[in-house]
């Protein structure tokens, strides 16, 4: 272990900012920065167990609807503002305030309120029981990162690009579209475990040149995903490079709009799902790196089902169903206008063509998909179930009747009942049963389907050590070092 030195990280995206009210949700790039700038109450260790960070200890109530955290004393924000329960509550209230209409509020919908009974005590009051709550707050996302209330108040509009946290690194400079330079926080409460003097984050949007930058030694670590399988496999063979992988939960998913033809007919939906050969597909698009998914939870989740009700891969059956449907099956699928979006679209198209269905690819830019999805202006759209420590938030909003994100426009009292039950149940095993029942139901109804589980990649020089597991795809370099 060597202290000092610096690291340059090549990220995919340009970070828009950190003010939750502005950016709503942190993307993968913002997460890397936020994990260095901010602290969360807890963090997950290598075994996935929550460990103290800003919180020293925590205690649930009987029914897991109230969690009490004891905070670490003497912590200060980078601007000198003391960190305490009040400051934390201010952060939370700001997100929750309906007047702010924060997109982030969605992720804290289960939290009714946060109380600060004293300087170092924090109480979360939840609407529904949550057994895994300390794990949920470990992730340096928009909802969990703790900002300095004085900073956002005094900086106003400028706060977005001048974030102030308690984290191990302080924002030194930031050129839009180019470099963000973070310097070690000399007053950090845990400064002995922080090694790099400086972190440089760069958006490198093009996958090929990003990898080339790593090869040429300009950056030490790059974000990557399985679509650059060639590069990943090349790096795996290269002794000078290390590939970091994390097999997370969640999946890449697709939602049928069940209110419009031809997807108002279950036979069509089932046929399309059965026509897929995920292994082949993985081979074709990611050299086999992608892990097929048969349910929305994935291997990384604690929800493990003996029977998830996945429909069999059966081309003949699919053909038969489509024949049975009688009418020609023709539809458009939204696809992001990126090389990988086109690739996946074409492969799906190919499978469905074989089953006798005609899919037309509609390329749209990334920003168009959410509004079209929310306005239900699509027949089939790609979506993603992100990696969270508890499936509830996403499952509930994705499938509960009337939720804006219930993209399938599908309503089933039984599904609603299961979702409600899983949400209010504290017993993990019972919840697993519920979620497996949900999976079976969805798979059978084929309102959504899943192709691959989420797997996260980062490639670095072999010298880089101490990179923690990339929970939820978050690359946290704040405690890494170079040999």
């Amino acid at each position: 272990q060597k202290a000092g030195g610096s690291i340059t990280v090549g990220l995919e995206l340009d970070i828009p900012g950190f003010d939750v009210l502005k950016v709503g949700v942190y993307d993968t790039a913002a997460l890397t920065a936020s994990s260095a700038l901010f602290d969360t109450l807890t963090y997950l260790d290598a075994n996935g167990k929550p460990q103290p960070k800003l919180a020293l200890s925590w205690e649930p109530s009987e029914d897991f609807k109230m969690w009490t955290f004891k905070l670490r004393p003497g912590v200060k924000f980078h601007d000198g503002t003391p960190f305490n329960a009040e400051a934390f509550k201010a952060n939370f209230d700001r997100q929750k305030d309906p007047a702010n209409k924060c997109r982030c509020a969605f992720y804290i919908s289960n939290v009714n309120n946060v109380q600060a009974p004293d300087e170092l005590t924090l109480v979360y009051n939840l609407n529904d029981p949550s057994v895994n709550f300390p794990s949920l707050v470990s992730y340096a996302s928009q909802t969990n990162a703790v900002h300095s209330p004085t900073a956002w108040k005094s900086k106003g509009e400028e706060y977005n690009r001048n974030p102030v946290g308690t984290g191990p690194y302080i924002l030194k400079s930031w050129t839009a579209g180019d470099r963000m330079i973070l310097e070690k926080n000399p007053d950090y409460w845990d400064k002995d475990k922080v090694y790099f003097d400086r972190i440089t984050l760069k958006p490198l949007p093009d996958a090929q040149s990003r990898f080339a930058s790593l090869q040429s030694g300009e950056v030490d670590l790059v974000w990557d995903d399985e679509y650059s399988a060639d590069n990943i496999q090349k790096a795996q063979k290269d002794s000078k490079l290390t590939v970091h992988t994390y097999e997370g939960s969640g999946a890449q998913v697709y939602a049928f709009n069940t209110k419009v033809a031809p997807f108002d007919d279950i036979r069509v939906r089932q046929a399309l799902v059965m026509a897929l050969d995920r292994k082949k597909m993985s081979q074709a698009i990611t050299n086999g790196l992608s892990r097929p998914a048969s349910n929305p939870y994935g291997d990384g989740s604690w929800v493990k089902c003996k029977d998830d009700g996945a429909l069999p891969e059966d081309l003949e059956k699919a053909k038969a169903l489509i024949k049975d449907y009688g009418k020609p099956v023709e539809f458009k699928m939204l696809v992001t206008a990126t090389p990988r979006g086109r690739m996946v679209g074409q492969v799906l198209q190919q499978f469905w063509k074989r089953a006798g269905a005609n899919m037309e690819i509609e390329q749209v830019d990334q920003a168009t998909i959410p509004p079209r999805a929310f306005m239900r202006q699509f027949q089939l759209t790609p979506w993603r179930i992100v990696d969270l420590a508890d499936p509830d938030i996403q499952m509930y909003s994705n499938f509960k009747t009337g939720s804006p994100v219930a993209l399938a426009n599908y309503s089933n009292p039984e599904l609603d009942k299961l979702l409600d039950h899983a949400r209010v149940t504290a017993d993990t095993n019972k919840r697993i049963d519920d979620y497996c029942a949900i999976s079976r139901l969805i798979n059978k109804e084929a309102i959504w389907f899943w192709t691959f589980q989420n797997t996260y990649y980062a490639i670095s020089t072999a010298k880089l050590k101490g990179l923690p597991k990339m929970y939820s795809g978050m690359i946290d370099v704040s405690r890494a070092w170079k040999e």
Partner: protein
Amino acid sequence: MATLELDVAEEAVSQAARKGRRLGLLFWAAIGWMTFVFAVAVFAPVLPLPSPTDMDMLERRAPISAEHWLGTDGLGRDELSRLVYGARISLVVGLCAPIIGLTLGGALGMLAGYFRGRFESTVVGSMDVLLAFPPLILALAVTAYLGQSIFNLTCILGVLGVPAFMRVARAATLTLARREFVIAAQALGATHARILLRELLPNVILPLFAFFLLGVAVTIVVEGSLSFLGLGVPPPISSWGSMIGEGRESLDVAPRLAFMPAAAMFLTVLAFNLVGDTLRALTDPRQGAL
């Protein structure tokens, strides 16, 4: 006048002889390649080729073999077949878009150069607006709004080319409109339409044609760039430009996927220009007079 007749008859012969001699081997090679590309593109559906969209997902980037003459692409599709079908798109877009620019820009430029005055200012001003406007936004707006199709793509590229053609046509017309033969036509009482069509057009078309040839090359490449940004031809249709873009992803593993379409494009563009240059030289009176 006996001698005059003699001379003239002789010249007629020499003119015929000249055409045969002037066109070199290169010209015929270029014609050959163009005919080949056109024929292959037109007859693609009846050629014994595998489907350009059928994937053999386990055979991606297969090397050259008896089954796949040029191997397969990143999704296991027959590369040769995609090249052939890509030729159709690239040729259609690469020729039609500059034709749109040529006709629209050419007409506007000629009118502006001929009538001058306020009309000219308006045309030049609106072309400046078009030039000052980021082309990407136009492309995005049109594809987002009207959908992605070869037709729309051709129109976008065509419209984007209009200002340049307008400038060329206007510049040529400005000098020509002052030339004596135009005034001569006016003196004869010819209408504006007649002067524009009969006197100016045959002369303006030459520089426009030269520019058109360069435009074909540029358009095929720009189509590739738009495909790269997701604004090009809708998949699974292939164009040479989009194939280069796809090939770029496997540059390490199978560089030929990017270079083969680039080579096809290069040869075609070069052939167009060789043929164009030669034809131009043949019809240019000044060259003939020497």
